């Protein structure tokens, strides 16, 4: 990105002042090298977001931002319903409530070294992943409705996990306001056999070790130290969420002229929050959030079964589950007053500061965990929301490494089998049915996740807690 059109607010915060149809400025959080690597499209798209009605304060892009659909991935924007604010299907994305769940295994690295290959194979066999995979459940309409209303709570009720898991899931595992009646027949059809499936692309289940602790005190209080083993899951609302996104992007794009909305890009498809279409989308999107929460809950259960087979002493307690493609109604200070705003986070993680009632009691003194998923060859990070982050970008932070190269380029540059071999020599076991898929997800196709985590901290969006290095990666 050409930085000449940006005003430097600090080393990690850059502003595009209001111009043209922009109602608010656009702000990009990143260090200079990350921002120079960003596609020009990020600047164009975040400026377009700043043009939408009812937007409050500014349109924000996180340090891992890259070109998306309408909104950039890594985009954050809040809208006031009382000022004509909109809800945007393009501002949430196709994989509604895609997110990361981290599990504490209670194990140390030496305990898994001798069984690592067996554990990798067992996990790969237990976790349905990739195109065409199905879960063990087949849901009829009535059961699907229950799942869509109750999310992870439904899954626990069906025996997938433990009741105490729910305390560590955003929204306590159940998104309020879901309306299963807004879920189309096609979306239901796509989901009937997909509960408890991982998906493909950048979705994964990883066994990771704590390679670095940034905050000894907080880590110790939460029971983490270097050498601990965790499991991370990255996936979302599967076919149902994709279908909801697909249908509402088209419906909103078609309806835009009726609402008097001129969209700079059709993918910015949106509708006034108070309109029937806006309300329909919110009901459907919240149901899709519940689908994602239920899906990650079932995958947790499957991971526990696999671990029990190989390492029965493992506990796999949920540390935290956070979604990064959502629109949520939240209370924030903006314009000198407390307001209820619809906060869109598309490839961005909520990062509430300490004390927020939304956080589980055990984590309330520390702030909301921000789970930044990395690549199979580099690292992931756990950060914490802070009092400062609470006031910045509506309590939002980065969500991942962010792609630096297209799939097309990556597939030309790397060979999957060679990558698997190289990573194995560095102690990372990859389980995937597709070598082309592995090549497209090559670690080198992503930005430097350590730089993203550092920029997130330095921009005041969250503070670093742990760095996690991959040991086993199961991909679809």
């Amino acid at each position: 990105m050409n930085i000449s059109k940006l005003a430097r607010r600090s080393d990690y915060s850059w502003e595009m002042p209001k111009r043209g149809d922009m109602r608010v400025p656009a702000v990009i959080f990143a260090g200079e090298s990350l921002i120079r690597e960003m596609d020009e499209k990020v600047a164009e798209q975040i400026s377009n977001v700043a043009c939408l009605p009812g937007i409050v304060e500014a349109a924000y892009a996180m340090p891992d931002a890259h070109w998306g659909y309408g909104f950039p991935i890594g985009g954050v924007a809040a809208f006031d319903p009382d000022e004509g604010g909109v809800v945007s299907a393009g501002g949430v994305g196709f994989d509604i409530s895609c997110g990361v769940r981290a599990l504490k295994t209670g194990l140390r690295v030496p305990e898994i070294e001798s069984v690592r290959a067996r554990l990798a194979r067992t996990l790969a066999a237990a976790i349905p992943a990739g195109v065409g995979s199905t879960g063990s459940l087949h849901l009829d309409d009535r059961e699907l409705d229950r799942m869509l209303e109750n999310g992870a709570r439904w899954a626990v009720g069906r025996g997938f996990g433990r009741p105490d898991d729910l305390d560590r899931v955003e929204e306590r595992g159940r998104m309020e306001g879901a309306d299963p009646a807004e879920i189309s027949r096609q979306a239901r059809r796509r989901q009937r056999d997909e509960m408890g499936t991982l998906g493909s692309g950048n979705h994964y289940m990883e066994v990771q070790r704590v390679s670095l602790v940034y905050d000894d005190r907080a880590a110790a209080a939460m029971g983490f130290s270097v050498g601990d083993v965790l499991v991370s899951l990255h996936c979302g609302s599967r076919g149902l969420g994709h279908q909801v996104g697909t249908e509402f992007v088209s419906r909103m794009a078609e309806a835009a002229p009726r609402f008097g909305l001129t969209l700079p890009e059709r993918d910015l498809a949106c509708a006034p929050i108070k309109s029937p279409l806006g309300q329909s989308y919110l009901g459907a999107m919240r149901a899709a959030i519940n689908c994602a929460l239920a899906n990650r809950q079932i995958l947790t259960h499957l991971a526990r079964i696999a671990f029990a087979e190989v390492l029965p002493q493992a506990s796999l307690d949920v540390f935290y589950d956070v979604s990064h493609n959502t629109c949520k109604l939240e209370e924030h200070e903006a314009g000198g007053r407390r307001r209820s705003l619809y906060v869109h986070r598309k490839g961005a993680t909520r990062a509430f500061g300490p004390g927020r009632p939304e956080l589980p009691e055990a984590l309330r003194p520390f702030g909301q965990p921000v789970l930044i998923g990395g690549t199979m060859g580099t690292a992931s990070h756990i950060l914490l929301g802070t009092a400062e982050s609470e006031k910045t970008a509506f309590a939002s932070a980065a969500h991942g490494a962010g792609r630096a190269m297209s799939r097309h380029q990556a597939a030309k540059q790397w060979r999957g089998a060679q990558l698997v071999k190289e990573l194995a020599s560095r102690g990372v076991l990859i389980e995937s049915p597709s070598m082309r898929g592995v090549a497209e997800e090559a670690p080198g196709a992503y930005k430097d996740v350590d730089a993203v985590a550092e920029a997130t901290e330095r921009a005041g969006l969250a503070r670093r807690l742990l760095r996690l290095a991959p040991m086993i990666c199961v991909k679809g």
Partner: protein
Amino acid sequence: MFRQAKAMDPIKTKRREARWEHFSHGADIGVRGIGPSRDKAFEQAALALTAVVCNPKRVKPVQRVTVSCSAADQELLLVAWLNAVIAEMSARKMLFSRFSVRSRGLRLKAVIKGEKADPRRHAPAVEPKGATLTALDIGRWRQRGLWTVQCVVDV
């Protein structure tokens, strides 16, 4: 990154046969169909969609499915068509390699043929989530006898 949102002029390439292409997008992938009619270009775009997942030549056209869709304009019709194929891939756990499109105005009917996805034989790389409105472009060179249709697919 994305360097080619607009379709290449097929005349300049001196290739007039129906075909498909991919084009780069930062995180995902663009699909492009080129053909002597809009229907043929739509068919090729669907082949490009399959090629995002696996080599279409490995997909046997043994099972037949019919799909239909409509839209408010022809750009959205392309998106609706590709999304109809994606929905069948997802719901039926199938991959498709033969497409026969018949459209009239803004309504489309098609017969698509393929088989159940087989991870070993197809080694599918990614799962398409949805066709998007990004880089959506259609019919730019129809006056020269070739249609080019394209959009980015979220994977």
